[in-house]
């Protein structure tokens, strides 16, 4: 969905997204890592289970909540990706429903 520019050489960190290692530029937020890894949808809306993904990247929409190092509901766009960090997405778990 997103890709690094060809000039992207520079320091990188590796994070583990749903078990798979992903290398991203140092300074990337966890949400940026998810988008670079194509880990989208990254979350299901808790009410309807509709698929969701980071939306604002600046901490205001709360659509980027994922589990980081065992702690659920962390705001991925406000947390810097760190070496070895384990990120778990929780995309849709049941079919869409609307009451």
């Amino acid at each position: 969905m997103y890709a690094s520019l060809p000039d992207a050489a520079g320091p990188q960190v590796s994070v583990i997204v749903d078990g798979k290692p992903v290398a991203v530029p140092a300074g990337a937020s966890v949400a940026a890592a998810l988008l670079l890894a194509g880990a989208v949808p990254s979350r299901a809306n808790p009410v309807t289970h509709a698929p969701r993904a980071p939306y604002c990247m600046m901490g205001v929409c709360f659509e980027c909540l994922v589990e980081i190092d065992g702690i659920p509901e962390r705001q991925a766009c406000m947390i810097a990706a760190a070496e070895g960090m384990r990120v778990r997405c929780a995309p849709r778990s049941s079919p869409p429903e609307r009451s």
Partner: protein
Amino acid sequence: MSEPYDLAIVGAGPAGMAAATTAAELGLRTVVLDEQEAPGGQIYRSIERVARDHPQRLAMLGEDYAAGLALVRAFRACSVDYRPGSTVWQVEQPLGILYSAHGESHRLRARRILIATGAMERPMPLAGWTLPGVMTAGAAQILLKTVGAVPQGRVVLVGCGPLLLLFAWQLLQANVRVSALVDTSTPGARRRAARHLPTALMAPGYVGKGLRYIRVLREAGIAMLDNFEHVQLNGSERVEEVVVKRSGATERLAADVVLLHQGLVPNANLGWALRCEHEWNESQRCFIPRVDSWGLASQAEIQFAGDCAGIVGARSAEHAGRLAALESAYRLERIDATARDAKARAPIAELRRHRRIRPLLEALYRPGDRYVAPEQDDVIVCRCEEANAGDIRRAVAHGCPGPNQMKAFIRCGMGPCQGRMCGLTVTELMAAARNVSPNEIGYYRIRPPIKPLALGELAALQLE
């Protein structure tokens, strides 16, 4: 407990950085808290890293971005206590500032506070706007500035406003050609804006820059669609297409990434939580805190500067920050009124120059009624609780008197974003349904903490 700071500044964007630099020059003991890891705010995000590791990207992002380096360097060089990675979640009276940094909460005391929390993009509730693959244009721009990442595949921009044009231009510099720009600005807006052109031309550089972006996008052959009746986004697990309906004909644009933008609104939750008075600004189509020309709020120890006090743009934000710091020093009796006024002369003149662009921009890019108050009932308004426009209209019909009661009626605004994504839409929908001014409807009552706190953080609060 240690001595309180003279001044606590929330936000290290152009307004906060300029205020801090001025406050330090005037000898104020100043602390700056910002939730980002580096100074710059939204416009100059990651500028130090880009200049150091990827200087070639400065040209790609444009001269206005590179101009931030001087401001950031002056800020770094001044003697203030700068605390990056610090999210302010509550301000108590008398002034105690509670903030969360790297999983721990702290409290510090200050005699005055300057809120310089900037802007966020105005929510754009369209059918399909919650689909993965749909983001704000600013979000994609953050990816470009912070990690040099660009959207892949077919990219469609939907909305209007200077930031949308700037970003389309920046993507072109990065060799990404968007497949279409779906322009939601209101038919007739150009005509209505025309009378502001002479004033706007007196603001330094803006009109020329805007025209240049438009020309470059046209020359690149980017399809621009306007004057249509309906736009919606379709997809199942991700966005797949943008559908535009115009005089009976339907156009389907395949899309992998859709970027929305319809201007900026103040990032206002801190001011609301502090019960500062706000009022509806019809020209900017949002609430803004009631402040005087020094940024003083309805409570005299609180000031606002920059886009959080009404959208003014980065250059104006910087000068507003300087003025706010001068007034703080005056209120703290470090300078007298004569000294304050003498030092204020240059920033006031600059503010006046830069503000001349605003009436044109506000008329030209005024968000259309149907994009701030969706007509179709099934358009989601509250992304967290998935309340839609129909739910809100029905609640009004059943006697729901205001936005706060809307929370109880349909849980709208009760999710983790605390109303940031739906608050203005709820006000607009209610105002339209009742045919009254948004001022009469008001806004959600915002309560601290203004950002959800991790469990246990409160218990372990560190006092200073």
